[in-house]
């Protein structure tokens, strides 16, 4: 943070009027002109999307029709509207005060640049794809100029004098020093806000997941800049405090959104992706107990997913499985799968949990490999014939209980639900179960003992915690949850084969990616692993445009993400303090005692 002579941003209304001489923008324009430029620019950008941008329909999204924006134009429209919204906020319009609580310039600058970036990206893409500027229509020129105005306006906003332009630019996008706490609102307003945000997030996610190549890049630009703007405006902190206050409601809304997702999908592919993400996320949450709470580094965790999957396959009645006569109903198969991985968890945990840190890591890695190799070799030729070796157990029949056959499509309220969407909904239920188990376990006596063990094992044992027993419980619980998810994954992928259960490979699920999902998402949190899982699945899917360079881009993305967010995207509040020395004491806001300490509670 550069040492600008910024006065603490107490939000008096007249803060914006510039004291003579000390505060001026890079571009010497009076404040009123700057704000006008921002507003006019925003509206113009939005308006320009209604004009024709190309004469041929070759360009994806067919931007040829006047009066109705298509493809990338929709994104420019959205960016233009957001810039206009923020511009109005600076005019102190009554209803929009909450948009820029600290009255800093960063959100304005970022939304303006966002609009500019997506418009110019589209314009350049048109030129590049259709060959030459000649393909631009008048609409395109207007859009290009219109999106430039807000940027000029933003850079003209008053700013504390800084000696170099580089620092001035940095100051422009700096987060406000002290974001004033939101005035207490009635609980039902808070819930309403959470619902709107959840619905909005679902819409954005559904739109984004469908977007292909150019559209996806434009989508990414708009989302990144808008999120950055909201973050610098301090709205993300307010929202996280909001969700913290009504924690269970926020999670309920999360699940409603998750259930809503397959309805927004026309084809079944993204439901298939969704169910893979959910399975991977549930297993990652199980690993989160072992790694995030109890601090035991487990590098062979995917083996428990394998145990669950193979057990379910064996009892699923597929004619390839050894006990082909037997067909368990789903709940029985799920229980046997979970029980089998529980037994495996205890078998693996008991001898090894006395080891410390990295020794435990290598032993669990060893067990992961032992599982994969033995399953691959047990085909009657080089081992007892239990798992058909490399051919695995194919043609596992679809689940059907209570008359609802998961194999066929069903129509609910006009939406067709494909096979994968059925499994997706089942998986949402199981994830809800696992999330409640995680939250309840982490916020209880045993949860506290796990965290105590992770913080300082010697002190914890001195407090009477039997280290070995507690670690074994964590290990076994994690294994059971992974086994449960495994039983569903067996039915989803029709067949169970040994090679996905490796330590590290190109595509998820494998142990290294599970660990990456937990650490990337945010260790010790509830939604972290799911976010991490979604990222690890969607990134390669969306990078497919780079063909054989996609894996390279994925590896680099992993490094960069870890470089800039070592504590994960949704940091567990207590972990965040460890790495960014905030310099000032972490004293919760001295608000009234009703401030629910949920934030600082273990594991929330």
């Amino acid at each position, binding site marked *: 943070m550069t040492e600008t002579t910024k006065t603490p941003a107490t939000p008096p209304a007249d803060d914006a009027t510039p004291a003579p001489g000390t505060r001026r923008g890079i571009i010497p324009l009076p404040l009123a002109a700057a704000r006008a430029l921002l507003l006019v620019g925003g509206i113009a950008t939005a308006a320009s999307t209604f004009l024709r941008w190309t004469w041929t329909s070759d360009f994806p999204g067919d931007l040829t029709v006047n009066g109705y924006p298509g493809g990338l134009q929709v994104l420019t429209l959205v960016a233009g509207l957001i810039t206009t919204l923020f511009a109005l906020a600076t005019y102190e319009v009554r209803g929009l005060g909450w948009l820029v609580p600290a009255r800093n310039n960063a959100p304005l600058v970022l939304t303006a640049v966002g609009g500019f970036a997506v418009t110019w990206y589209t314009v350049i893409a048109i030129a590049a794809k259709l060959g030459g500027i000649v393909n631009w229509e008048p609409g395109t020129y207007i859009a290009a100029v219109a999106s430039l105005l807000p940027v000029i306006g933003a850079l003209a906003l008053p700013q504390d004098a800084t000696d170099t332009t580089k620092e001035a630019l940095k100051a422009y996008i700096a987060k406000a020093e002290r974001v004033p706490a939101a005035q207490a609102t009635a609980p039902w307003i808070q819930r309403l806000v959470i619902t709107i945000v959840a619905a909005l997030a679902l819409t954005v996610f559904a739109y984004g997941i469908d977007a292909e190549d150019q559209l996806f890049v434009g989508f990414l630009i708009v989302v990144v800049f808008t999120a950055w703007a909201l973050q610098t405006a301090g709205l993300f902190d307010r929202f996280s405090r909001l969700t913290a206050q009504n924690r269970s409601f926020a999670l309920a809304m999360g699940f409603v959104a998750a259930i809503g997702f397959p309805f927004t999908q026309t084809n079944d592919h993204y439901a298939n992706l969704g169910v893979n993400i959910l399975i991977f996320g549930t297993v990652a949450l199980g690993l989160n107990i072992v790694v995030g709470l109890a601090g035991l580094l487990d590098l062979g965790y995917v083996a428990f997913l394998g145990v669950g999957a193979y057990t379910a396959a064996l009892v699923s009645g597929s004619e390839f499985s050894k006990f082909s006569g037997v067909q368990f109903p789903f709940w029985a198969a799920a229980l046997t799968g979970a029980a089998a991985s529980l037994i495996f968890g205890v078998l693996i945990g008991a001898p090894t949990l006395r080891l410390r840190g990295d020794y435990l890591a290598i032993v669990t890695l060893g067990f992961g490999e032992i599982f994969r190799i033995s399953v691959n070799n047990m085909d009657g030729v080089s081992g007892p014939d239990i798992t058909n070796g490399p051919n695995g157990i194919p043609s596992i029949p679809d689940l059907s209980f209570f008359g609802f056959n998961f194999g066929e499509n069903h129509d609910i309220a006009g939406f067709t639900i494909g096979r994968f969407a059925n499994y997706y909904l089942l998986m949402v239920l199981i994830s809800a179960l696992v999330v409640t188990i995680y939250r309840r376990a982490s916020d209880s006596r045993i949860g506290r003992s796990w965290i*105590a063990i992770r913080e300082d094992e010697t002190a914890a044992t001195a*407090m009477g915690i039997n280290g070995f027993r507690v670690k074994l419980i964590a290990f076994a619980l994690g294994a059971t949850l992974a086994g449960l998810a495994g039983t569903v994954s067996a039915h989803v992928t029709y067949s169970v084969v040994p090679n996905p259960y490796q330590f590290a490979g190109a595509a998820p699920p494998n142990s290294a990616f599970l660990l990456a999902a937990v650490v990337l998402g945010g260790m010790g949190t509830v939604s972290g692993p799911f976010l991490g899982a979604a990222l690890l699945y969607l990134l390669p899917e969306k990078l497919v445009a780079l063909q054989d360079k996609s894996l390279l881009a994925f590896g680099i993305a992993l490094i960069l993400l870890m470089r800039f967010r070592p504590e994960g995207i949704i940091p567990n509040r207590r972990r965040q303090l460890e790495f960014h020395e905030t310099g000032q004491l972490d004293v919760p806001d001295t608000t009234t005692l009703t401030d629910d300490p949920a934030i600082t509670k273990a594991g929330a």
Partner: protein
Amino acid sequence: MRFGGLTAVRSVDFTVNAGEIVGLIGPNGAGKTTFFNCLTGLYVPTEGTVSYQGTVLPPKPHLVTKAGIARTFQNIRLFANMTVLENVLVGRHTRTKEGLWSALLRGPGFKKAEKASEERAMELLDFIGLAHKRDHLARNLPYGEQRKLEIARALASEPGLLLLDEPTAGMNPQETRATEELVFAIRDKGIAVLVIEHDMRFIFNLCDRVAVLVQGEKLVEGTSDVVQADERVVAAYLGEPFDGGTDDTTAETEAESTTGTTSTKGEAQ
């Protein structure tokens, strides 16, 4: 207790009865903390046993605490990233029994036990005066308060015997006096206290009895003035008196001044 060739503690038998404060002093490297670690099961004593209220305790730290002996550490070992309240709640671990199942089912038993633990923890926090900081992270408390929190955490397991390992190390005078009142209050609650300390004035007006440990052996045990007068203790602390035969008073003042300086021998425990 032997580490390879070095016998850190040899044939030290010791009794502390309820409601009594006993001091354990000795120059650096006398084996005080090693003795502590044997007592609390951190080290497995090569010979001899630790028995509490008659029953012999296995050298397992968590069983020792369950039996009723709680301890603090020489260098503070709080759960840095847990809040003050949570640290004390962890202390209550041995006195509660809700396992994984009760946590998952959240039956009435679980809620009652959690509320009871929280109340008991808040009582303890009031007792040491940190109730208003229940949601602060332990790592952010000033040094003195961290010491007090560690004592509260130890008390949370309802011990019969509390072992304090240099509770006033690095404290300023009024903090030391505050700790004194605290220990007296603990003693009045009927808990036996065993204190290791270098601050002579603190020890002598705090403890009913004092034992001196030198080179792993118990030199003398008795009331504080008996121990002060014993020239072997003075010799152990100051070394042989300079052959010019000085009387007690000067030895007394010298003892005062030297204890402050750290002795040359490295800390061996």
